[in-house]
């Protein structure tokens, strides 16, 4: 088991290097340090001296991949690519355009993001699985068909409309919760409850359809027929036999997104003014702050890769049929 996990982690390293290469190409080759300097300095008349000074200050004045001036191993290591890669891999994200420490900001903003993402995730899974089971219990009935039509409709509405409609109905008309804002501690509940509800509702359509089809695939299998033949009621067949077996593909399917919950939700956070990582990213994109965007791209990829490793491990833990290879 341990060797398997170590193997999986080792396999993640080349992927991380690839991600690093892609981010480097995007942020330093497509958009060269000279371009960055020009758009940062902003002025119409930018002299080459000013560009050089800016690059010097940011530490971008080295060659991209090979340094012809250096000798020996420094030829490769004393370059922008290696220098930036080492910084990223040690999670040293540097400073934003407004001179704030990006690493510190990320640490601070993780909690508000989690306060929305984690409850939406858990409540979402529980609701969706219960709804899917309900539909499977009444499969073929009017309830089933009409709920499936409703599910397609829920899927067909942009999440922006759920947020706007939620804000109009619950905050503006009924004054149940504040429109936006955040405070730390238990006072956060009144701010996060609406985003959580909206997040759960917007996800119902696609998830219930998916889970229902998983359960329906299981329900025609022999062990279900045997359970029924034993004389078990339909309800206990569903909960004792169908649910554990159907949960397997669902759980292993959602494990991959658990680490990325830290990243928060882009639009939800910015609509509700929650100071999480999602709104951090949006603000950075709108202000064209490349240092922050770069940090978030890298962080997001690392979390996703952790999710992939967790998925593989969860397969071996939950499904005894999977052999360790």
């Amino acid at each position, binding site marked *: 088991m341990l060797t398997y996990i170590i193997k999986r982690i080792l396999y993640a390293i080349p*992927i991380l290097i690839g991600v690093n290469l892609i*981010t480097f190409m995007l942020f330093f080759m497509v958009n060269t340090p000279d371009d960055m300097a020009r758009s940062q300095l902003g002025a119409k008349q930018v002299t080459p001296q000013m560009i050089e000074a800016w690059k010097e200050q940011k530490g971008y004045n080295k060659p991209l991949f090979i340094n012809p001036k250096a000798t020996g191993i420094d030829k490769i290591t004393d370059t922008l690519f290696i220098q930036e890669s080492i910084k990223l891999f040690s999670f040293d994200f540097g400073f934003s355009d407004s001179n704030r420490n990006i690493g510190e900001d990320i640490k601070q903003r993780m909690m508000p993001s989690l306060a929305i993402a984690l409850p939406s995730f858990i409540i979402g899974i529980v609701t969706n699985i219960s709804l899917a089971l309900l539909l499977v219990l009444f499969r073929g009935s009017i309830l089933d068909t009409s709920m499936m039509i409703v599910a397609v*409709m829920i*899927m*067909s509405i942009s999440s922006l409309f759920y947020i706007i409609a939620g804000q109009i109905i619950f905050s503006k008309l009924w004054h149940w919760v504040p429109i936006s804002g955040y405070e730390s501690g238990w006072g956060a509940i009144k701010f996060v409850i609406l985003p959580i509800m909206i997040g759960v509702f917007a996800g119902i359509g696609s998830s219930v359809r998916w889970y229902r089809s998983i359960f329906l695939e299981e329900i025609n299998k022999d062990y279900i027929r045997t359970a029924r033949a034993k004389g078990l009621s339909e309800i206990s067949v569903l909960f004792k036999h169908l649910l554990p077996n159907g949960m397997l593909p669902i759980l292993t399917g959602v494990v991959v997104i658990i680490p*990325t919950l830290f990243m928060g939700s882009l639009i939800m956070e910015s609509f509700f003014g929650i100071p999480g990582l999602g709104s951090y990213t949006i603000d950075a994109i709108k202000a064209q702050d490349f240092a922050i965007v770069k940090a978030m791209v890298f962080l997001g990829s690392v979390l*996703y890769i952790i999710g992939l490793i967790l998925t593989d491990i969860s397969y071996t833990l939950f499904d005894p049929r999977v052999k360790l290879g």
Partner: protein
Amino acid sequence: MKITLLWTDIMVWILLFSVVAWGWIISYSPQVQKQWHTIFKSSIAMISAIILLFYLLFALLDSVHFRFKMKLSDNYQSNMVSLLDIAFEHRIKTKERTYSAPFALKEYTKDISVDKNGVTTQIYKPLKYVHSGNIVINSIKSIALGGIISFLLIWLHITWRKKRNYSSDIPWKVGYITLFILITIFSWLYIMSFDYHVLGTDKVGGDVLYQSLKSIRTGVLIGVLTTLVMLPMAIALGVSAGFFRGWIDDIIQYIYTTLNSIPSVLLIAATVLLMQVVMDNHPKWFETTLDRSDLRLLFLVIILGVTSWTGLCRLLRAETLKISQIEFVKASKAFGVSKFTIIRKHIIPNLMHIILISVVLDFSGLVLAEAVLSYVGVGVDPTMYSWGNMINQARLEMAREPMVWWSLFSSFVFMFILVLSANLFSDRIQVVLDPRNDV
């Protein structure tokens, strides 16, 4: 007058012609005929297909651009107009001053006015470009117009059907009714648009109906052209990974795992931002603002394509692995048939259902993604008409009393109908084409 095509215009027409040609070629296969027959046996599939065609028609009308000669000299005007613009000319330049509700005769906000005696009062000023037409008579007119047009189309279709001896277990009647309703609704909107701002006006007084119709092109193009970018990559890489295996498979798997692990919104955002910097540094590339926003749309489509091929590629790789183990492929290998012939004749035809299902499924996702991306600020150009931009502008006015709801409402309705019919149609395709289902 001369026809000037934008880059995206050219792409969309190429795509249309290749799809038509491809459809014409494969329509000779009896198996394909039977499949499509089964798809259209469902009334829901019929209705949603007709709605999708209607949207496509608007996108195509908006994809033929002209430039008119200037009045005094022999040069051409710098601004381009599409066929849709020509049809809606009466609502392009007639800009009000600010918001007005649908069918309103007066402005939405009070304004100071000074009368003859020098007394200032606050009144709702009348709108400049509306006249109170007779709604009842115009409605009757539009029903008659819709009836005539749809009757002609239906009559043409029936004669064509009789010639071909088409079987009648396809719900043609449902299709005809949908066609009649759609044409009537549109002719009602169109006739009314001469008298009123049917869906109101936005902050700078632009007509919301016109904006919503212009947004159709943006939405449809993002959904359709992304596929054009994505498909060749997904098919070529997925099939070769599954067919050749070994180190080719390893490399391709590595590429898509790497690309996949970057959160797609962030990757799109980063790429679009960088592209913006490049475009800002080269202002000479674009003659007009339309050129500029069009090129940005093209870039966006390419970026979306590059970031979204991985899912389909993985599916195709798995399916190719499975197919190449089946006896008929092994037999053709043993007969010495060349690898590319095997791929062309045996592998790709058996992947068609996966490709088709994922194309239609992706379409609705992309239309929805456009709105979110525009909100984040990395979508289409802010000067371009799109549902995302409409929502984005309307969102800022939520706090006003009474609410400015019509921009939101129109973009919601237009988007919802398009995405819903795409979803329903793709469901039907999936049910029929997926070999695991028995229809």
